C-alpha cells in the first residue's frame, strides 16, 4: 500500500480547502450575505454582553475587562470548530439518506476525508472579532505582556479549541446510533455560550458537570486563569491541555467507530 503520512494529508487538505473556498467565492451574493450575517451575529452577541455589564460591574469577582477577555477567548477558541469541522452539521442528514456511504470508498482516513470537504470561511470574521476583543481587554487589564504569556495563551487557545471540537465530534457522531440526533448536536453547540462565563457563577452541581462530564469549563474559564490571574491558577488549569488532547482522541474514536459500523441504506 502506498504510504500516506502527515505530509500527504496536509497537502491534500490544503488542496481541498483551496477548492472549496474558490467555489464558495464564486457565489458572490451568497458569500456577501453570509458574511454580513456573521458580523451582525457577533455584534449582537457583544451588545448583549455589554448591556449585562452596564448593570453588573462585576460577576462573582470578575471585572468587566476580565470578562471581556474571557469572551474574546471563547470566540477565538470556537473558530477552528466552526471553520474546519462544519461538515459535522450535515452528518446526520448524510447518514439518514445514505449519502454518507460515498466517504467509505476512498483509501484515506474517513474522518479526515469527511471533515476536509467543507471549510466555513465565515468563521474567520469571528476570529478577527475575538482577537480584537482579547487585545483590547488585555491592554486595559494591568497584567503586562511577555512572550511567555503569549505562548501560554496560544497553547491554551489550542487546548480550548480541541475541547470544543471534541464536544462537537462526539455530539455529531451520535447520529450513527440514534435517528434524531440534531438535538444532541444543537445542545452541544449551545454549551459554548456557557463557556463564556466563569463557572463559579453556576451551582455546584453544574460546576461539577461542566468540569468533569461535559468539560466546557476548560474551553475558556480554566485556561484564562493562566493569563489573567497567574498567581491563583487552579490545578485543573494546568490539566487543560491534557484534557483537550484526551477528549479529542476519545471523540475521534467514537466518531470512527460509528462511521465504520455504518452500512448505508438500500438503493
Amino acid at each position, binding site marked *: *500500500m*502506498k504510504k*500516506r503520512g502527515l505530509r*500527504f494529508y496536509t*497537502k*491534500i487538505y490544503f*488542496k*481541498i480547502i483551496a*477548492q*472549496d473556498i474558490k*467555489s*464558495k467565492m464564486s457565489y458572490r451574493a451568497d458569500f456577501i450575505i453570509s458574511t454580513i450575517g456573521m458580523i451582525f451575529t457577533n455584534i449582537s452577541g457583544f451588545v448583549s454582553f455589554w448591556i449585562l455589564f452596564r448593570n453588573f460591574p462585576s460577576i462573582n469577582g470578575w471585572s468587566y475587562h476580565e470578562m471581556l477577555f474571557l469572551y474574546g477567548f471563547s470566540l477565538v477558541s470556537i473558530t477552528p470548530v466552526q471553520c474546519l469541522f462544519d461538515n459535522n452539521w450535515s452528518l446526520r442528514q448524510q447518514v439518514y439518506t*445514505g*449519502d454518507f*456511504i*460515498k466517504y*467509505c*470508498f*476512498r*483509501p*484515506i482516513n474517513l474522518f479526515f476525508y469527511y471533515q476536509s*470537504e467543507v471549510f466555513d470561511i465565515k468563521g474567520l470574521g469571528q476570529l478577527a472579532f475575538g482577537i480584537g476583543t482579547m487585545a483590547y481587554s488585555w491592554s486595559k487589564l494591568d497584567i503586562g505582556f511577555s512572550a511567555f504569556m503569549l505562548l501560554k495563551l496560544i497553547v491554551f487557545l489550542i487546548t480550548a479549541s480541541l475541547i470544543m471540537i471534541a464536544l462537537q465530534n462526539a455530539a455529531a457522531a451520535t447520529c450513527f446510533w440514534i435517528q434524531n440526533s440534531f438535538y444532541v448536536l444543537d445542545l452541544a453547540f449551545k454549551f459554548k455560550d456557557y463557556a463564556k462565563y466563569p463557572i463559579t457563577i453556576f451551582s455546584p452541581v453544574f460546576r461539577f458537570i461542566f468540569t468533569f462530564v461535559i468539560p466546557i469549563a476548560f474551553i475558556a474559564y480554566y485556561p484564562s486563569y493562566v493569563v489573567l490571574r497567574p498567581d491563583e491558577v487552579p490545578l485543573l488549569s494546568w490539566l487543560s491541555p491534557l484534557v483537550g488532547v484526551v477528549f479529542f482522541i476519545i471523540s475521534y474514536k467514537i466518531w470512527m467507530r460509528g462511521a465504520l459500523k*455504518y*452500512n*448505508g441504506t*438500500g*438503493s
Partner: protein
Amino acid sequence: MGKIIEIKNVTKEFKVLNRREGLKGSLKDLFSRDYKIVRAVDNVTMSIEQGEIVGYLGPNGAGKSTTIKMMTGVLEPTSGEILVDGNIPYKNRAKNAENIGVVFGQRSQLWWALPLIESFKLLRDIYQIPQENYEQMLELYKSLVDIEPILHKPVRQMSLGQRTLSDILAAFLHDPKIVFLDEPTIGLDVSMKAKIRTLIHELNRRRNTTVILTTHDMGDVDALCRRIVIIDKGKMLYNNDIEHLKGFFGSYRTLKIRLDGDLEQWAQQLAQELPDFSVSADDEWISVLVDEEKAKVIDVLAGLQKKYRIRDMQLEEISTEEVIKKIYEEGVQ
C-alpha cells in the same frame, strides 16, 4: 487469467426490530427487545475472473447491494470468506479501496461544487496516480467520449447523464482492477445509455478492468455482459452465461406485432384474450411470449390476424428481459 474476486459461502444477517403499528406500538417498541434475524445474503459462492464483466441481477431487495457492500469492505459478512484481489475487504478497507472503483447510480461521489477537472486532480492526489498515467487516462477519456463540455462544469450544474458519465470516469481514473457499477444507467435517456454502455465496454477492453454491474435494464446486460449472476431473497439462483440460460427457454418465441392506436391498451386487451402467454408493449411493438410446447406461434398469429389488422410483425428468440422476468417470477427449475 486469475480469479480476482472469490466469495465462499458468504452469509450476511441483519438484526431487525419487529416494529408494531400505531403510536401505541411505537411506544412499546421503545422498550422492546423483540428482534428478528433477516438473512440478506444466504450462502453465496462465486468467483470472478480478471477482466470479466459480470451482470449481477435480482429484484429489488434481493441482496445485491449488500453483496457489493461486502465486496467493497463497507460491511462485514456474518460468515463465509471474501477475497478481493487477495485482500479481505472488511479488514483492509483502505488497501482494498486502492484496487476498486465504485459508482452508485444516483449518488455522486464527486465534490459537488467543483468542476470535474478539479475533482480529477484531487483524485489524482488522493490515489497518488503518477502524472504520466493520469495524463494517459485523460487522453483515453478524450478519445472515448466528448468530455470537453463537462470538464470545466461544476458537478452540481450537470445533468443526470453528465453526472453519471463523470462518476464513471472518476471511478476508472486510478486504473483500478475492479469497478463496481450499481445501476449506472438508471434514469438516463436512450442515447446517454448507449454512450455509457460503449464507454464501460471500451474501458473494460482497454484496461482489462473487471466490472461488476447491477442493473434492472436488460439493455445493459445485452450490451455488456456475457455472464450473469442472479440472486433473489439472498440466495443465488443462477451463475453462468446468458446464452446457457436462454437455452432453458429454447421453446419460447417472442411474437412482435404492431397495431394501429394505443399499444398499451391493445396489450391489455390481448392479455385477456391470451391468458397462457405474457403480453407486453413498448413504444413500437406488442410482444407476445409464446411457449411452442403449448401452442405454435403460427397458430397464435393466424388467430390474431382474423380479429385485428396487423400492420407489421416480427419473430424473435426469447429476450434477456423476458428470461429474467420469468426467473424472478418462477425461479430456475
